[in-house]
């Protein structure tokens, strides 16, 4: 393989990876809201609902009753996993710019965490509300 081909391959990889990581918190809210609007016409994301969602005790998991059990109440601070004691990077994109920039990753963690904490997968409406809350919390 010559140098030109290697460069082309690297450029291609860089190009595709930037496509995958092109999401922003705002763009995710928009797409989740659009999905939610299919079920509920006129749906608009609500930071208040997102806040309630984040702190609500679901009564499903004893050790992880709500999101804040691990993520903490301060979105800009580190969280701590209640089972493993491991540090969890802050949820807020303001202090942790990697957050909510990769749809696949966001979906993976919503699925994993919603299933255990809420007892089911989260709806698009809940996801839109939650990310809206994260964004507004940062601004305020």
């Amino acid at each position, binding site marked *: 393989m010559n140098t030109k081909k290697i460069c082309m391959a690297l450029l291609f990889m860089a190009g595709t990876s930037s496509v995958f990581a092109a999401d922003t918190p705002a763009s995710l809210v928009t797409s989740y809201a659009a999905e939610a609007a299919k079920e509920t016409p006129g749906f608009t994301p609500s930071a208040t609902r997102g806040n309630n969602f984040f702190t609500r005790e679901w009564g499903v*998991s004893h050790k992880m009753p709500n999101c804040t059990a*691990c993520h903490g109440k301060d979105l800009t601070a580190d969280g701590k*996993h209640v*089972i*493993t004691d*491991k540090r969890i990077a802050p949820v807020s994109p303001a202090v942790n710019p990697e957050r909510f920039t990769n749809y696949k990753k966001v979906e993976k963690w919503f699925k*994993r965490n919603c299933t*255990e904490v809420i007892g089911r997968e989260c709806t698009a409406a809940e996801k839109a509300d939650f990310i809206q809350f994260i964004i507004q919390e940062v601004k305020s």
Partner: protein
Amino acid sequence: MKRILVWDIPTRIGHWLLVTAFILTFITGDSEVQRLRHVAAGYSVAGILVFRVFWGIAGTRYARFASFMFSPREVVAYLGGLLKGKPSHWLGHNPAGSYAIFTLILLGFATVASGIADYAEVGGEWMETAHDVLSYTMLGMVIFHVLGVIVGSLAHHENLVRSMFNGYKQGESEEAIESGKAFWAIAPLALAILASLLVFIT
């Protein structure tokens, strides 16, 4: 032909411990609540495999790696015979099965290594994907292994699953292993448990 001992006790115990630990890793893999159990089961898999490598060198005749090193040509010949309905018979692992065993051992170590890296938060998303791909490849290999056992059992009219429980197969008396090495059964068990305890210090 008579009933002879082929699989020693540590090999059998190690095999079923590995089955158990492997199933546990899959049951606990998608859970944060079960995260520590997942890690402990993963360490167990590695511990049992460490024993298997040791036993592949120091074990009894059919457990030793040297007894089931086959060339790809022998695998093709074996599978060809199987397709013709006239597979050659092997008391230990057959040529196709042997590759499943070696692949499973390597995949097991690689999967645990990537899992350890994930748990230490080394390697980021790439490592998470690697762990997923490796574990599902291993699951695929396990399915291939089980299918091979079923096909082999039918083709040779012998119950290979039962042999992995009681250690016996039909063969000539001079082909039998001399001892079940019961004493060594403690080794896979101890390694499985000790390895799982690593969860408390990592």
